[in-house]
């Protein structure tokens, strides 16, 4: 209980600091809202122009992109700002975090919770609900569970990627935008039906790294469509498992990173 109150205090500190710059907070909030709308619109424009993409209609495509963007928005809101770890490592703020009686990762996340991204989550959920209603889905208890679990597992999966790639900063302070290739790059990959991609690239990202299970496979199972690439319908239910594996891997990388932390001069 005391610990929760302590984490709440870290969050309160952040919230009050943000609130001391009101106008810039509101501007940030609206800019972020715009960015999410653009993300979804990009995919819709593609489908709109082409009619169907790799055998998927506009509404089916909308379901895939909304599952992906909803999961991503939650992850980006919850742990996205861990990207700033490199700044903290460089400036030594990490030292101050490590001398407090609380876990380092939850502190960093709460110290920097991007409240301006909160609206993105709402938009993401809204688009997903619309996509679920626009498609002709044969609702069963398993499909209801899948519709709820998929964005959450996606959030966990993207969160793990955020943490693992940010941890690079412990070894390599100038890790720059390497992480973005996997976070934002991964989100864009998951926004499209898999048959759009080809060869080793598809094999590596979709199955090797698990991006295929974030939105594409669950969407097929929700729609009751067979996978043109041949995986059975049960593959749609694998996303929580894939997310847990990714989370475990990210935890290992994060721990190793903390041990490797070098701090900076005095």
């Amino acid at each position: 209980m005391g610990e929760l109150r302590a984490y709440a205090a870290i969050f309160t500190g952040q919230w009050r600091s943000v609130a001391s710059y009101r106008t810039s907070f509101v501007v940030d909030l609206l800019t972020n809202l715009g960015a999410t709308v653009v993300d979804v619109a990009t995919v819709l424009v593609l489908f709109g122009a082409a009619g169907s993409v790799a055998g998927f209609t506009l509404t089916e495509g909308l379901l895939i992109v909304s599952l992906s963007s909803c999961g991503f928005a939650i992850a980006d809101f919850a742990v996205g700002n861990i990207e700033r770890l490199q700044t903290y490592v460089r400036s030594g703020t990490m030292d101050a975090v490590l001398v407090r009686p609380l876990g380092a990762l939850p502190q960093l996340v709460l110290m920097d919770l991007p409240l301006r991204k909160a609206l993105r989550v709402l938009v993401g959920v809204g688009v997903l609900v619309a996509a679920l209603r626009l498609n002709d889905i044969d609702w069963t208890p398993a499909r209801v569970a899948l519709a709820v679990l998929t964005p959450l597992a996606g959030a966990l999966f993207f969160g793990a990627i955020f943490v693992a790639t940010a941890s690079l900063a412990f070894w390599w302070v100038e890790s720059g935008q390497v992480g973005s290739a996997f976070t934002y790059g991964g989100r864009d990959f998951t926004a499209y039906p898999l048959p759009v991609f080809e060869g080793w690239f598809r094999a590596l990202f979709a199955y090797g790294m698990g991006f295929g299970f974030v939105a594409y496979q669950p969407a097929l199972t929700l729609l009751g469509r067979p996978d043109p690439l041949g995986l059975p319908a049960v593959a749609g239910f694998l996303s929580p498992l894939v997310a847990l594996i990714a989370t475990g891997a990210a935890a290992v990388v994060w721990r190793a990173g903390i041990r490797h932390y070098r701090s900076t001069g005095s």
Partner: protein
Amino acid sequence: MSVITMRGLRKDFTVRVRAGRLRREKRTVAAVDGIDLTVAAGEMVGYIGPNGAGKSTTLKMLTGVLTPTAGEVSVCGLAPVPQRTRLALSIGVVFGQRSQLWWDLPLRDSFSLLRHIYRVPAGAHAARLRRCRSLLDLDGFLDTPVRQLSLGQRMRGELTAALLHGPSVLFLDEPTIGLDVVSKQAVRSFLAELGATGDVTLVLTTHDLADIERLCERLVVIDHGRVVHDGTIEALHDRYGSRRRLVADLDTPLPPGFTVTGAELVAVEADGHRVSFDLLSSSAGAVVAQLASLASLRDLSLLEPDIEDVVARLYRS
């Protein structure tokens, strides 16, 4: 009872050094190269050394920020890195350059947030804050956002922040760096008072030897990651041959071929009217008596050795 134990403590860093146009070589540098030290409860230890000697690295290993490459370390009976969060509850840390305060919030808010982070009962927190407020004179700027505080005010805030949970060990990394004379005095007398209670073990690094002379009985000099001196300031003088100097003004020069035992003649000035001796023993009386029997004395002065000189010599050697 020892509060801090270090045995063979070591920290290596790999650095990449440019070798040629594109090639870079990896080199291992020992920032801390085998330190053995114990600190007893209630001690006040000053840690000095040139830049890059390994002072901060040692402090960071003691506080659980850095993982040692080799060796053993224990603080308050805990292993700093594996038991970092437990240890954090019993130590206070002031890193001169790293703030524990919320930049955009009034000082008062930072203190109340820290109360929750360290899970301090309201009564104990209020009592400690009251004491710091009066000793450090915080009342004038408690409601000012930290970003608008002067360095001296902020440092007083940092000290308070580090003490509100009642730590048994306080680590201070250059607590007086960049402060003006008045703020330095305020910080020093506060720390002296804190140390005098004997409840808190104090370990501080500094470049300002006045901090050590004022606060610490025990002085640890570190250079190239090794302890080169551990003891009192007096022991440092004894060991490095810094002696007290006796300067005598005479009415007549000393007779040729004179002998003075227990002192060494180092200078003769003003046609023999001023002579300087380094005292070899601790007593100046015997030397003064010998001088008085040799010539008529007009004036005498005794100069204490300058610790800055000693340390400068130590760094160079």
